[in-house]
């Protein structure tokens, strides 16, 4: 019985890891001709190209990083503040329904609807435009995420703090922030992942001029360059894996 269970677990683990291993292997390959089981040439050239020579790939990596960090930072902070305002508002339910609105449409359809305005405002085809476009998705997500934090209990803690002589800023620093720290980090990570893997909005609003890693992956697949596509995919996986590790190592440990 135990053996059967172990085999099933191994199979599931293998199903999860195998595609990643293939991706990793492909990023170190050069030629793979049918019907060979393994690639003909294994080389570090692809990675060396990315690390030392190919500025375009490096630019894409750092553009994606800058974009995702900016989007998650802005969305988390503004979402946290706006969620408080909504949670304590008389018309909380109506305002919260509005926050769900961007999720009623797919991001690509949403981007097509907004494309005209982005063009008029000179925001199409540049990084600022993409940050704003991605905020249209991540900002309401943060609002929905944080409305569960701003409950009556937190409000009561704030009130206790005020009556003990604390100002709004001190209450935030000494009470609200320590209570919200884990929520803020989790929300930041989730927004980062949403932004990092975002393709539709970025492609439509960026007009292909802003070359993020996801755009590059599709580009290489279109060119049938599976080795560079695999390399880009490995780079795409890297930050979320690091975030997951950080999350498990520090945040989950703290919450125990």
């Amino acid at each position, binding site marked *: 019985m135990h053996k059967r269970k172990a085999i099933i677990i191994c199979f599931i683990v293998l199903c999860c890891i195998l595609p990643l291993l293939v991706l990793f292997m492909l990023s170190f390959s050069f030629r793979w001709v049918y019907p060979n089981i393994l690639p003909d040439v294994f080389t570090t050239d692809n990675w060396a190209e990315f690390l030392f020579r190919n500025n375009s790939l490096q630019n894409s990596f750092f553009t994606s990083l800058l974009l995702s960090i900016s989007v998650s930072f802005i969305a988390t902070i503004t979402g946290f503040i706006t969620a408080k305002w909504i949670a304590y508002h008389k018309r909380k339910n109506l305002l919260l329904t509005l926050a769900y609105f961007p999720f009623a449409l797919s991001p690509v359809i949403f981007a097509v609807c907004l494309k005209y305005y982005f063009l008029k405002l000179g925001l199409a085809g540049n990084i600022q435009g993409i940050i704003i476009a991605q905020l249209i998705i991540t900002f309401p997500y943060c609002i929905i995420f944080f409305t569960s934090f701003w409950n009556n*209990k937190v409000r*009561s*803690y704030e*009130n*206790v*703090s*005020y*009556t*003990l*002589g*604390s*100002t709004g800023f*001190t209450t935030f620093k*000494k*009470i609200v922030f*320590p*209570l919200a720290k884990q929520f803020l980090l989790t929300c930041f990570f989730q927004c980062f992942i949403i932004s990092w893997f975002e393709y539709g909005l970025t492609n439509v609003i960026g007009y292909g001029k802003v070359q993020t890693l996801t755009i590059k992956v599709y580009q290489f697949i279109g060119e049938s360059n599976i080795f560079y596509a695999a390399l880009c995919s490995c780079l795409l996986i890297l930050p979320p894996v690091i975030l997951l590790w950080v999350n498990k190592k520090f945040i989950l440990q703290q919450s125990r």
Partner: protein
Amino acid sequence: MYLRLQNISKTYGSKEILKGISLDVAANNTVSILGKSGCGKSTLLKIIAGLEKENEGSILLNNIDITNRKPSARNIVYLFQEALLFPHLNVFENIAFGLRLRNENKEDIKNKVTLLLQQLELETEALKMPDQLSGGQKQRVAFGRALIINPPLLLLDEPFSSLDVETRSAMQQLYKSIAVAYNITALFVTHDLKESLIMGDKIAYMENGSITVYQDKKDFINDIKTGVAGEINFWNSL
């Protein structure tokens, strides 16, 4: 009078919660306010603490008009039904919270908190987190957190209502002794008849947003609407 409420009114939409409440509280006295749920007791306390804004009226504390002051500038501490200890701070830090806000030096904070922990019989719990305490212990810590800053007025909003009978009785006795030791002036809101009689030097009864203040306990007992007479008849008929 130490605390003077003058014609306090409050409405939510079209509903009138408080109808021109006037009340005087003498220094070092506890006035207990008895009333059913929803009669406006908690709203009145929140207005005094500055957590809610009144539509009309004024609040004078020690002859100073505090009506338009922020809660943090009133120096009035509100004790809720729940202890509401800050969950990320241990017992010592919860009690020391008000002193740290006032930038008192570390040695003074340590001495004051240690002394209060002894008086509240919590010295062995100092390093415990709130989730490691019983309901009664939590309320004692909440008391300590309020008392340590020596507030001119304490507002108690049914602080013992979630405790079992024995703990509740012990907490009532503890409050009475501390009130004398620290010269506390307080408003004690409750819906429990017996508690209102035990806790108050003076008793008031609130109904539909209006308040009746009794001269003494005899007047309170004789007034049919307080329900004391009915209670006495019930026990006598057994």
